[in-house]
């Protein structure tokens, strides 16, 4: 009786263990793996490979070498410049805003309002965002008309246009700044309240505290956030397309044109352009992952 009772749970535990193992076949990673292969890996790999294959079907750099034409170099240069500027500007502004909200002595309730709004604004991109800025800074926008009538300064007679590089950069900040705020806030909250006091009691000025304590800790998260912003802007298509009606020379817009054949149809070149974009994005995120790992070691 005692023997049987002690054996029964052991048997059922073994049964559970066996079913855990058998479940591997049933649930497994199969749906996920199949989905990733069919919808993500094959389409991307095909496009990238086609960028590296010539008309004869063999490996060739013919498509990639087309990228050295001035028009395409210019598209990548514009894309990278736009992304770098909005990443740096959005990064600094987003950091200042996060800093003000977290440690500026503002009411605590403001923090969750800022977070929720940032969540919305970081996802409020594309066509609606282009429209919102056209209503503000377009030739007949609210702010333009106000400047023209009340300040007697017409930005459009002074070389400004919303539908070019500068206008696009300003528009991108609308989703870049909130994204930076969301990414960098945890690092700022990680700074202890006691640290500035400890530094002050050791005779450090607020500037010294910043230079010797806060900045060294925040440097990696800041840089990581800016890399994320860079990638975020580099892959952006809808906002630029809607705002400039596809006229600005950016890498993503070029790919769309080459592939759909609205203007010119050259799928080999389109594949090479896509390959270039994936390469730039991969480098960006490799650095981002590296920074994340180093930041994790610091515990921030």
């Amino acid at each position, binding site marked *: 009786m005692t023997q049987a009772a002690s054996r029964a749970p052991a048997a059922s535990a073994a049964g559970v263990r066996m079913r855990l193992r058998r*479940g591997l076949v049933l649930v497994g990673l199969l749906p996920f793996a199949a989905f990733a292969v069919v919808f993500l890996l094959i389409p991307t790999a095909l496009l990238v490979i086609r960028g590296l294959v010539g008309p004869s079907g063999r490996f060739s750099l013919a498509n990639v070498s087309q990228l050295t034409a001035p028009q395409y170099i210019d598209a990548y240069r514009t894309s990278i410049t736009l992304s770098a500027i909005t990443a740096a500007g959005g990064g600094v502004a987003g950091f200042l805003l996060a800093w003000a909200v977290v440690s500026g002595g503002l009411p605590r309730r403001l923090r969750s309002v800022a977070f929720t709004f940032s969540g919305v604004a970081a996802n409020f991109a*594309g066509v609606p965002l282009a429209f919102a800025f056209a209503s503000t800074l377009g030739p007949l926008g609210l702010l333009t008309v106000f400047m023209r009538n009340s300040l007697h300064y017409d930005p459009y007679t002074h070389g400004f246009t919303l539908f070019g590089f500068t206008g696009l950069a300003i528009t991108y900040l609308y989703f870049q700044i909130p994204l930076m705020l969301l990414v960098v806030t945890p690092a700022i909250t990680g700074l202890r309240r006691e640290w500035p006091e400890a530094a002050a009691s050791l005779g450090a000025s607020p500037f010294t505290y910043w230079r010797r304590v806060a900045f060294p800790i925040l440097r990696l998260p800041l840089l990581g956030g800016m890399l994320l912003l860079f990638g975020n802007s580099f892959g952006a298509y809808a906002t630029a397309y809607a705002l400039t009606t596809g006229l600005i020379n950016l890498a993503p817009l070029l790919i769309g044109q080459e592939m759909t054949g609205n203007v010119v149809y050259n799928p080999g070149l389109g594949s090479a352009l896509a390959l270039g974009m994936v390469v730039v994005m991969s480098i960006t995120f490799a650095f981002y992952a590296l920074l994340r790992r180093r930041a994790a070691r610091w515990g921030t």
Partner: protein
Amino acid sequence: MGHVRARSRPSAGALAVLGLAVIFFVLPLAATVQFSLQHGSQAITLAPYQEIVSDPLFWGSLQFSVTMALLTIVLGMLVVVPAAYWVRLRLPQAHGVVEFICLLPFVVPGVVLAIGLARAYGSGNAGPLSNFQVLLVGAYTVLSLPFLFRAVDSGLRAIDVRTLTEAALSLGAGWPAVLWRVVLPNIRAGLLAGAFLVFAIVLGEYTIASLLGFSTLGVYTELEGAAHAHAAAALVVLSFALVWSCIGLMQIVSGGGTRMLEGGGAR
């Protein structure tokens, strides 16, 4: 006490930064609202909104976008939940790989994904994959992988997956019951939060939809903008309200968590 008060007094710099931010973020919204309330010579009118709601094309594209969003959520859950669960339960060494694949959509821009899918399967000899609606839902699911995986994975991290599973199995539950009645209820908040975020992203998506040739809400807004600017502004106000309520709901169900929001959807 006095010390605490002194700490909570806002600094001038913080107020200045906040003031500038409020202007920068509110002005475009205010301008859009103002623009959406004009029509012809009328200063304030709801005519643009009436124009939108009386346009069958609007309802058609809204219905299409909502359908795509719901299908994306269902497919995303079916793909992500078992994988995240299984990795936690049996294959912790595969966690890095699954997470890496779920972050890949950040590296592959929407343009590249849309054109890659159309090139790979669009020619018509790939069975159901040659159906562009299937490709659209697939592409949207790819877009939402990072958000869904993060939501599900952090939900699973908070519970003891192994103990719960073994307990359920030893009580005689089958695998469907384990997933449906034990695991899912425990990560419901994270799932709901992920679903709202995906809904908001898909509803406003433009790039993939336009390249694959569908008239989603985003594509309709673009077309409407070319023809009727005021009506388009009204549409933007409506879609902003929609995104706002989705993200708001997301934050409520996830208890104010912001971890999910890193990284944007479709730009």
